[in-house]
C-alpha cells in the first residue's frame, strides 16, 4: 500500500466499504476471539493476566532503553556475519533493498508477509525496478493477485469468498480452479513452490529481534516464512526499530502472548530463529543476511511520553478482532497499512495528524481493545491524547481542525462552565425544541444535530429537575421566587424602556 501523502477521510472510506465486508470480517474476528478464549482458558485466566503484565513491563523497559538494545543487536548480528543497515524512512529502506538486489543481480524475489514492507511500499519499488516479487502468505498472495489491499493484519483475504478466489486463480494463473479451499490452497502451494525454489532473494520482516544473541525471529503457519528465509541465497529482513527485545527470556514471554492473542493458537506451526547467515553450505540457508532497521516516524512516537506506549505493540491483531468499529468497516477504511485500534493510534503518529487526524476519532473509546491487548497498551488513553493533538496541537504536531469547530468548542466550554448560561441554555433548548417534538421525540434537527437525527430520533429536551427540586425545600422555593421577581422586574424594565423609547420617538417626530 505504501505511504499516502493525502488526507485519510475516514468517513468517506466508510461510505465506500463494500456491503459484504462487515459480515466476512466478523466471521474471521469471531473465530479468532473464540479460539483465543479457549486457549486463554486452558492457560488460566490469572496466569494470563500475570503474563500480560510481564509483556507490558518488558516492552516498556525495552522501549525506554531502545538505543542500547539497538546497538547491542547490531553488534551481535554483525558478529554472527550479518549486515545491519539503518533506514530513516521508507524511501531509504526501499533503496537499500534495491541496492542489495542490484549488487547481486537479483531479478526475482519471494516475500513473507511484513507490515514494515507494506509501510514502505517495498513491493511497488521492486516492481518499478523490474524485480518480480511474489507474496507467499496465501492471503497476501491472493490479494496481490487481485490487486487489492489486505483487510486484516492477520487474515488479509478474509473479505474474499472462495468463489471469488477460484475465479481469480482461473483468470490470473490460467488453471482449473474449483471453489474449494483445500484445492485452492493446493494450487497456491504448487505455484509458490516453483517460486521458492527459483528465487534469488528472500524478503521478510521480523516479528522480533533478540538483542542479546542477535537473533531474528519469524513466525509462520504456512511454512513460507521458512521457505523464504532458507532457500534463496540472500535473505533481506526489514523491521521497525520497535521490534527489538532484550533477551530470550523476554522473547519467551512474547511468544506465549502472540499466537494465543492473534489466532488462539498455543504456538504457530513454525518459529524460525535466525542468527546471521548460514555457516555451512551443507546446512543450507542463505549465505548472505541483511537486516534493515527502520525508523519511519517511530522516534517521533517515542518522543511523547504518553503515546510512546504505542510502540509496545507486538502486532497480534486482537484489538482489531474485538473493536466494534473495525468489525463494522474492515481494514480498508483506515486508509493505511495499520488498521483497527492500533492503526488509529500508530498511523496519525507516523504520518502526522494533518494526514491521519480522522483516525483518533474513529472510536467510541469503549475500551475493549485495552482489555484484550496482550501487552496492555492503554489505547483509549492514547486516542484521547492524540485527539488533543488534532484539535489543540501539542509539542509534537497539530492542530489540524477548522477554526469554526474550534470556536464552537470555545462557545460550548463557556456554556458548560457557566451555571446561569447553562441553565438558561437548557430552558431555551426546551422551548425551542417544543415545536420539533412529537410524543417525546424529535425526529429532525438542523445541522449539525441532523447527524444524530438522520440515524435515530433524539429524545425531547426536558430540563425540569431543578425547578422540581427547588419546589421541595423552603430555600429552593425562595430561590425560585427571587428569580421570578428578578425576571419580572427585568421584563417590566424592558417593557418600560421600550415604551419610553417609543414615546420619545413619537414626540421627536411630532
Amino acid at each position: 500500500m505504501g505511504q499516502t501523502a493525502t488526507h485519510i477521510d475516514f468517513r468517506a472510506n466508510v461510505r465506500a466499504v463494500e456491503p459484504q465486508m462487515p459480515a466476512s470480517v466478523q466471521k474471521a474476528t469471531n473465530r479468532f476471539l473464540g479460539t483465543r478464549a479457549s486457549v486463554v482458558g486452558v492457560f488460566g485466566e490469572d496466569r494470563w493476566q500475570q503474563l500480560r503484565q510481564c509483556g507490558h513491563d518488558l516492552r516498556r523497559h525495552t522501549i525506554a532503553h531502545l538505543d542500547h538494545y539497538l546497538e547491542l543487536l547490531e553488534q551481535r548480528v554483525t558478529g554472527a556475519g550479518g549486515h545491519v543497515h539503518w533506514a530513516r524512512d521508507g524511501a531509504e529502506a526501499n533503496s537499500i533493498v534495491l541496492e542489495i538486489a542490484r549488487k547481486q543481480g537479483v531479478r526475482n524475489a519471494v516475500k513473507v508477509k511484513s507490515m514494515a514492507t507494506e509501510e514502505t511500499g517495498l513491493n511497488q519499488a521492486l516492481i518499478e525496478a523490474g524485480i518480480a516479487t511474489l507474496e507467499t502468505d496465501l492471503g497476501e498472495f491472493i490479494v496481490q493477485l487481485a490487486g487489492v489491499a489486505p483487510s486484516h493484519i492477520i487474515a488479509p483475504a478474509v473479505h474474499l469468498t472462495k468463489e471469488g478466489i477460484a475465479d481469480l486463480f482461473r483468470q490470473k494463473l490460467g488453471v482449473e480452479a474449483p471453489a474449494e479451499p483445500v484445492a485452492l490452497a493446493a494450487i497456491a502451494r504448487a505455484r509458490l513452490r516453483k517460486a521458492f525454489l527459483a528465487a534469488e532473494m528472500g524478503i521478510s520482516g521480523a516479528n522480533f529481534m533478540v538483542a542479546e544473541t542477535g537473533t531474528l525471529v519469524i513466525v509462520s503457519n504456512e511454512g513460507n516464512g521458512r521457505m523464504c528465509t532458507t532457500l534463496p541465497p540472500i535473505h533481506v529482513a526489514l523491521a521497525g526499530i520497535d521490534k527489538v527485545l532484550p533477551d530470550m527470556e523476554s522473547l519467551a514471554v512474547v511468544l506465549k502472548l502472540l499466537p494465543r492473542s492473534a489466532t488462539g493458537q498455543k504456538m504457530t506451526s513454525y518459529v524460525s530463529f535466525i542468527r546471521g547467515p548460514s555457516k555451512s553450505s551443507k546446512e543450507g540457508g542463505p549465505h548472505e543476511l541483511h537486516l534493515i532497521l527502520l525508523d519511519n516516524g517511530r522516534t517521533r512516537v517515542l518522543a511523547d511520553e504518553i503515546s510512546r506506549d504505542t510502540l509496545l505493540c507486538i502486532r497480534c491483531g486482537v484489538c482489531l478482532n474485538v473493536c466494534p468499529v473495525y468489525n463494522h468497516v474492515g481494514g480498508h477504511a483506515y486508509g493505511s497499512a495499520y488498521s483497527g485500534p492500533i492503526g488509529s493510534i500508530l498511523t496519525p503518529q507516523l504520518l502526522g495528524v494533518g494526514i491521519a487526524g480522522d483516525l483518533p476519532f474513529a472510536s467510541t473509546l469503549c475500551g475493549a481493545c485495552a482489555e484484550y491487548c496482550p501487552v496492555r497498551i492503554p489505547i483509549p488513553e492514547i486516542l484521547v491524547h492524540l485527539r488533543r493533538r488534532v484539535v489543540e496541537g501539542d509539542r509534537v504536531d497539530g492542530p489540524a481542525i477548522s477554526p469554526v469547530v474550534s470556536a464552537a468548542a470555545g462557545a460550548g466550554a463557556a456554556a458548560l462552565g457557566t451555571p446561569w448560561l447553562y441553565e438558561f441554555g437548557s430552558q431555551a433548548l426546551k422551548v425551542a425544541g417544543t415545536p420539533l417534538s412529537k410524543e417525546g421525540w424529535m425526529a429532525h434537527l438542523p445541522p449539525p444535530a441532523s447527524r444524530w437525527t438522520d440515524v435515530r430520533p433524539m429524545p425531547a429536551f426536558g430540563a425540569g429537575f431543578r425547578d422540581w427540586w427547588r419546589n421541595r425545600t423552603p430555600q429552593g422555593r425562595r430561590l425560585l421566587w427571587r428569580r421570578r421577581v428578578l425576571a419580572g422586574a427585568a421584563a417590566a424594565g424592558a417593557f418600560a424602556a421600550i415604551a419610553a423609547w417609543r414615546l420619545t420617538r413619537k414626540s421627536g417626530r411630532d
Partner: protein
Amino acid sequence: MKVQLFLTCLGENFFTPVLRDMVMLLERLGVRCEMPEGQACCGQPLFNAGFQSRTIGPARQLLRAFDRTEGYIVAPSGSCADFVRHRYPELFPPGTPEHTVAVDVAQRTFEFTEFLVKVLKVTEVGARFPHTVTYHASCHILRGLGLRDEPKQLLLGVRGLELIPLAEEETCCGFGGVFTVVNPEVSGAMMGAKVRRIEDSGAEYAVVGEPGCLMNIAGGLHKVGSPVRAVHLIQVLAAQE
C-alpha cells in the same frame, strides 16, 4: 447519611424522570439528598473531543459547586463519575489548592449502582417490576469503573423481574459521545446491531445504566417501531408496580 446529587448534563436535559426516581429511591433508603446549585457539566464531552485546555473551565465550576459540600457525590452515569474520579486530579497541577479539591471530589464521586452496592451495601431496594428485562453493559460502567456484576445484582434483587441475558452484552452500542456526530454511519451500524440483539432477546424492556447509551438505544428502538422499551436502570430500581 447525606449525598450530593450530581445531575449530569444529559441526565438533566433528557432524563428528568430518572433524576426524580433517583431522589425518591435514595430517600426511601434513608439517604438525605442535597443538590449543589452551581453544577453544570463535568466537561467530559470537551475532554474526549480533544479540547483538554477548554475542559478546565467547566471542571473548575463543578469543583466550585461540590467543594464545600459533604458526603458522597452520586451520579446516574458511569461516564461522568469515571471522568471526575480518574481525570479531575490530572487536570490540575499537584500541590495547588485546586488539585486538593479535585482529589477530594474525585474520591467522593460514585456512579449510582456503585453507590448502592459498595457504599450502602444493598442489592435489594424494595423494588417490584414484574417484567422480562435485558441489560446492556455500558462501556464506562463496565470498563471505566469495573462494575460488571453490581448492576445485575441489583436487577436480580427486584421482585418479579426476569433477567434475560443479552447476546454481545458488553459490545459498545455506538454512542461514544462525539462519535455519533463525527462518524454517524458507523454509530448507526453499531446501534442497529445492538437493537437487533435486544429484540432477539425477547425481553420487554432494555435496561441501561448510562444516559448516553439510553438516548442512543431508545432512539434506535423507537426508529424501528420496536415494542421493546428502553429504560434507565434507576427507573427499574425505583419501580413499585
